[in-house]
């Protein structure tokens, strides 16, 4: 089993690399377009994946990953399951602020509340931030892309005085005590 590790490659100057993992491959392409076209100051590379582990063949061409984003579409049960199985292929070194969950479809009324709760529980147990995003409108995609950009800049070490661990300590998902009971 090939674990994806955060520190086995040298970082490049003024470059941030972000890996978007989404089973449906819908939202990630939209996000990627906005991210690469918006940022002009630094060089942002986006890698798109369906699931982890990533194919071995690409290991050489793949840059050092600064942020792994798991996109979960709550409308599909399979999306959640795929994310849960993907997480196992991630090195523990990522869980110091280099992992983030992006949830879409949370506002859809027909979606069971349990799914959102299980993502929250997972994010809380892994000390990762969880963001909610709107994937249907261009403004929503843009807003989500900008938030990811600001996180990846920090985790790539491009922001002076801030580190990934410091940021994640502030932004990590927490669960209210009463939800933590069950």
């Amino acid at each position, binding site marked *: 089993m090939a674990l994806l590790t955060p520190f086995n490659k040298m970082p490049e100057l003024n470059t941030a690399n972000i890996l978007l993992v989404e*089973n449906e491959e819908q939202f990630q392409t939209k996000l990627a*377009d906005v991210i690469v*076209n918006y940022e002009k100051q630094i060089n*942002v590379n986006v890698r*798109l*994946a369906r699931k982890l582990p990533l*194919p071995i*063949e690409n290991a050489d061409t*793949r840059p050092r990953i600064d942020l792994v984003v798991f996109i979960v579409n709550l409308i599909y049960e399979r999306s959640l399951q795929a994310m849960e199985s993907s997480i196992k292929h991630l090195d523990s070194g990522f869980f110091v602020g280099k992992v983030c969950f992006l949830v879409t479809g949370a506002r859809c009324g027909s979606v069971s509340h349990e799914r959102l709760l299980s993502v929250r529980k997972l994010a809380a147990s892994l000390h990762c931030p969880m963001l909610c995003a709107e994937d249907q409108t261009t403004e929503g995609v843009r807003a989500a892309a900008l938030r990811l950009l600001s996180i990846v800049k920090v985790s790539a070490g491009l922001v002076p005085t801030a580190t990934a661990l410091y940021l994640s300590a502030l932004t990590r998902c927490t669960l209210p005590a009463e939800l933590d009971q069950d």
Partner: protein
Amino acid sequence: MDDIATDILRRTIRKIPVKKLQDTLKSWEHISTSQLETLDFSQPKWVFLENLRSLCEENDLNVKHVTELEMIYHIRNPNQGTWHACQLLEAEDEALSVELTQFREQFKAHLMEVMRHVSVKIKKHEDQAIWIRIAWGDNFNKPNQLKPTYVVHYLQTPYVFVSKLSSKHKPYLYQALVLSTRHSSIKDAHLSGSSLIALRDLLMRQYQQVFPTNQSRPLQERNALPSHPNIGKEHAELAEKRLQMACEAFGDGTVPKLETAVYRLETKYKGNGNDTLIDRDEPFKGVVQFTSTNLLESLRHCVASGMADAPVTPLLSSITQKGRNYFVITEKGPGAASQMTGRKI
């Protein structure tokens, strides 16, 4: 013009859109060009119909002529009602030399032999298709012109498409078809849909097919590369492979438009829990039905996007492989008589 003729004329004219009226009436050839010029196509349909009817009476047209108009309408709009495909089996040596006039005479003769009152009209369409309109009667009643059966047969092929056929008349039609096309039997092809063209394309394989290849990847250029050099796809190769497999199973480009696929399960219940179902000896019956405006397209997308498993299950790929969309699935092994009709899994 009797009542029935007027009725058919009215029904047909109502269905034809105003824009196409003139063209359709012209190809009917029973109303002269000068008469056509006197008609005002912008009139409301019921006024127009009255004028047309008086012209028909002037020309002394009867039911026969009016049904021709109805046929023209159906030939031009083949996607109506449900078409069922049938397959002729065991061609005799002369089967390949059957041509239209011979077929027309024989078909009529064979049908008239078993039924006294039946009216048959046969017309050849441009694309080699023979359109047959049959109005059925019985030994005491005149043919019911208002509920005709339409049959389309492509000469020298084993395929026949039937629409609006009642089970009562099925044996007569099948017998006449088998005898006049020089085959020894006919069977239901278990394929139905509202688009005649799609059924024909599927059975005669007239759609863009993709065959397994080992080295070259013809789909590569079509699989759009990421728009930006900074975007890299980790699973590009996998996605391409899935697309290739999807196209191998369901065809490339525009695929025939099927609406449904029905799987009738007569297998034993397999699964966890529910002991009462597992212990039962008799099969667990169920029907699985897939519906879509374009089923093959949907299935192809499901496989290409990874929603369905990539090597397509033979259950789905046999829609195109075997050209049918109705399956009976029974347990493997000896037993069950229903295996006769279905496909063993």
